[in-house]
């Protein structure tokens, strides 16, 4: 049974989540991938204001395909997360509480999640047309020149994801693979 949660995330919500939990996310999330992460962290380091409030925010690592006429968004599945690892700890330090992507994170990210109380979700990579149905509104709010990499504000309803890493060190990838590995 999936847990229904609301984004932005509260500290309490993050505390309740464990690796392996299925969740349905509703509320507001922001898109960001490689180049957007670089700009966001450059802005933070320069003391500039970010295009959205990081407090409790969830960033979805996605560069959607263009919306067809009459549609909110095109296909919108997750991109591989480790490319954001160089930037994520600073964003968590400044309030980021959730990340949605796919694939394994590195230790500094896992450490920052424990330290700042954040959670890493996976969406199903390549289920991009299916996931798009849960995105009800989308608008570019920053870095429009980056095209697919621009930052978008998304309103989502029951966006399906699974908790990979919780704030207690739980790691669903490790647990899952250990269960099925054969020597």
């Amino acid at each position, binding site marked *: 049974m999936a847990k229904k949660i609301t984004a932005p995330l509260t500290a309490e919500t993050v505390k309740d989540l464990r690796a392996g939990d299925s969740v349905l996310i509703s509320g507001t999330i922001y898109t960001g991938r490689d*180049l957007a992460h670089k700009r966001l962290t450059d802005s933070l380091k320069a003391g500039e204001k970010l295009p959205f409030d990081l407090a409790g925010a969830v960033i979805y690592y*996605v*560069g*959607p*395909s*263009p*919306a*067809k006429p009459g549609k909110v968004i*095109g*296909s*919108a*599945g997750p*991109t*591989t997360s*480790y490319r954001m690892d160089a930037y994520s700890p600073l964003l968590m330090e400044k309030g980021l509480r959730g990340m949605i992507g*796919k*694939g*394994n994170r590195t230790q500094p990210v896992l450490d920052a999640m424990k330290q700042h109380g954040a959670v890493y979700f*996976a969406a*199903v*990579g*390549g*289920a*991009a*047309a*299916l996931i*798009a*149905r849960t995105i009800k509104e989308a608008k570019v709010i920053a870095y429009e020149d*980056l*095209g*697919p*990499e621009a930052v978008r504000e998304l309103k989502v309803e029951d966006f399906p994801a*699974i908790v990979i890493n919780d704030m207690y060190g739980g790691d*669903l*990838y490790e*647990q*899952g*693979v*250990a*269960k*099925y*590995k*054969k*020597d």
Partner: protein
Amino acid sequence: MKEIQFDTIRDKVAQTCIEANCLLGDDVVQAFKDGLKVEESPAGKDILNQLLDNEQIARKEMMPICQDTGWAVVWLKVGSGVRVQGGELYDAIQQGVAKGYKDGYLRKSIVEDPLRRKNTGTNTPAIIYTDIVPGDVLEITVQPKGGGSENMSEVKMLSASDGAEGIQKFVVDRVARSKANPCPPVIVGVGIGGTFEKCAMLAKHSLLRKIGSTHPDPFYAAMEKELLDRVNKLGIGPQGLGGRVTALAVFIEAFPCHIATMPCAVNINCHAARHQSITL
């Protein structure tokens, strides 16, 4: 001599880019269904079912299966008796890719320089590989290749003394290190032999094979089977959440080799194994 119009090539390439990205091959869909029969992990089964649902939505709405609509890798077989009227063949391919990615609402994922990273806005240039063949037919294959699985690919220069086991260890290890990143269940393309760059192209080309097809050489057919079995014992499973179905297929292409070398390339494809061919 057969004359083919520039505009015909451009428009057919555009259409092929759109169809390749929105319509997954029957062989891949069948592989998901076959995977459901052997997958033991509940999460893994759930993911395979979602991929089947996703394929249906993409087909019905002509939406991309994946938002990463890839590099447009284009393989040409140009009959020596073919002549293009009204322009150059490569221009027709490049313009066709740009048109297809625009008209089909496909994502433009190409930056014009690897370090300065400004998007070209057209998804061009396409990567074009050309074979000149006898006859008067032009065959065009479009293979949209996603970046996430490309990142998990590698070339290694092995020695002859490493033998078949050396090759197998490298391939299995490459998939093991990829973990959840390349969107498993994957298709593993393996190139063996040739030069450094040739074996990478062999690996990429092998990904055009139909899942379920058997290698014509029994030696490599047996190696493909053994490799698939070893890869699926890794336990990575659909999306890396643990399970039996880590790969849907392993494809090998081998080529003559220098006496001093034994290069091997592994090119990983995500489960959205997209390619489509047309003949003009």
